């Protein structure tokens, strides 16, 4: 291996490490600096349990639109044309804004001083109903502990959201208690 190739070899390994540390740093920054929100999940589908290693979390704000069936989802007004594959910014429902009328989901990035928005990707759009993926749909648990979450009556997820709308799961609240892995 020539000296140049050796340097490139070291550079590739350094880039790999920087990439991994980059993911760690980015997610830690969201968890430290992000704004907190608590999201309600709809009952976890037992078929989505994958060998007890992780649970699938579906949020009330996963399905939005005038005619959507879940209580929070149908309170959303979709602003503009929202198509499959679009990035969408969804106002996060809180106890403060729950009774203040319509919440919005839009493709235009809201200004930084706006209310708390969460960024997602539209996975389907039909008849003015959209399904949104926020990148927080999986929660990894120790082997065999998934059933506790599946059988709980009430599951909430505390997330941290940064100014760009990217969310990271901080912890699960199962039956009003913070779930300890």
């Amino acid at each position, binding site marked *: *291996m020539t*000296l140049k*190739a*050796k340097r*490139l*070899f070291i550079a*590739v*390994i350094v*880039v*790999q*490490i920087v*990439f*991994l*540390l980059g*993911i*760690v740093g980015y*997610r830690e920054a969201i968890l430290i600096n992000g704004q907190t929100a608590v999201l309600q999940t709809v009952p976890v589908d037992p078929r989505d349990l994958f060998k007890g290693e*992780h649970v699938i979390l579906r949020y009330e704000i996963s399905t939005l639109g005038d005619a959507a069936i879940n209580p929070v989802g149908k309170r959303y007004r979709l602003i503009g044309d929202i198509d*499959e*594959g679009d990035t969408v910014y969804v106002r996060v429902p809180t106890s403060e804004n729950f009774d203040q009328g319509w919440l919005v989901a839009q493709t235009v990035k809201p200004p930084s001083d706006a209310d708390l928005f969460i960024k997602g990707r539209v*996975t*389907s759009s039909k008849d003015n109903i959209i399904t949104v*993926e926020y*990148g*927080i*749909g*999986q*929660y*990894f*648990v*120790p*082997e065999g502990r998934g059933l506790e979450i599946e059988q709980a009556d009430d599951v909430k997820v505390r997330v941290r959201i940064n100014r760009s709308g990217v969310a*990271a*799961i901080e912890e699960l609240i199962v039956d009003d208690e913070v779930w300890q*892995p």
Partner: protein
Amino acid sequence: MANIQQPAETTEIIEPGDAAQTDSRHNWLKGRINQWRESGLISDEQSEAIIKFEELPEAPFRLGTRFNRLVVVLSTLGAILIGAGIISFVAANWQGLPAIAKLVLLIGGQTATYWAAYQLQFVRGFPKVGGAVMFTGAAWFGANVFLVAQSYHLSTNNPDLMIWWFLGILPLAYLARSKAITVMAVGIFTIGISWKTAGIGENTESAFMVMGSLLLIATALYATGMLHLRRDNLKFHAGPYLVTGALLAIGVVYVLTFDEFFRDSRQGSVREIAALSGSYIAIGVIISGITIAAVVAAARNTVTSGATTFVSKYAESGAIALVIGFGWFAAALPFNSPTPYVIVFNLLLIFLIFSTIILGIVNKREALVNVGIIFFVIDLSTRYIELTVDMLDTSLAFIVGGILLLGVGYGMERARRKLLQQFGMTEAVNHDS
């Protein structure tokens, strides 16, 4: 690490694929020596002395080749077992480990693996073992990408993670001159990009856009392989691109030969090219453009002579252009009835199968010949089942089919050996089995 030695092993190793080349070089040398002797340039004694000097050490060479393979297999298995053990230990105790311990174990383990690989491959003179450890390091990086994503509850059903893995290890394949890592990188890329493409949409219409896109990706992979062949220092890495491109193209076209696919998916709707999403068209145009430019560049620089000129220079490029055209055809779906598609894609499949076999023979690429032959047998079996399912009694159809397959298999095996012999490649035949 200041003193980098060239490994002693490298000069002695003759890869199995090079054996035929070495034999033919030896025959050429014998012929020349005879000519020199006949023309009086050298004496009979000198001629015999040169031939004896250049004689191939038959038994040690064969033993060396087999021994090298054994070393590679054992080293790779050992390295993978150690890596898998550490990663599964970390994964199993994930929640119980402090964050810093996880990072140290994952990133430290990966770095240590690369360091060991470098030492073995480039400093200590054990390229085979070092190559196997390097392969483990590349696999370890992929595992780390997924484990770090998992630790932050990021979705691991994400093709982007595979693309990142591919980007991380691709340069390693070239720097470490590792075919195993090239195969891994191209394989990961193909799975990741196909997965990502499949996410274009979940409705029935988008299935054709996915198929069309996969055909374009297949041509891009093959063209990348062609470009590699034009540079002496990159030739070594061309195979995985060529074979994966051919496999993907023929595989996708095979799926498109079934009328049920068109009937079920189209549900009678007419799809116009205008209905395709603008961004997908733009990406498709860019991929097609780059692929055609690469193929033209590769064909222009081809230095060939004699009968292989046409095939090497134009047929390969023509086949790629044809697949690109059919990629767009599959995505646009201009006809309303499934029949034209079934006819067209069946013809294309036959064309691609025979093109792959012919190109494999002309360019002396055994893997391409094998891909063509495997799909020939698959296609033949499929059509046989389609034809006989309504015509013959099930048991009779199985018996006749079995006899036909055995006959075809025997004929194909004979033809395959003959082809390999024709382009100077030999393979070990185990008479014990």
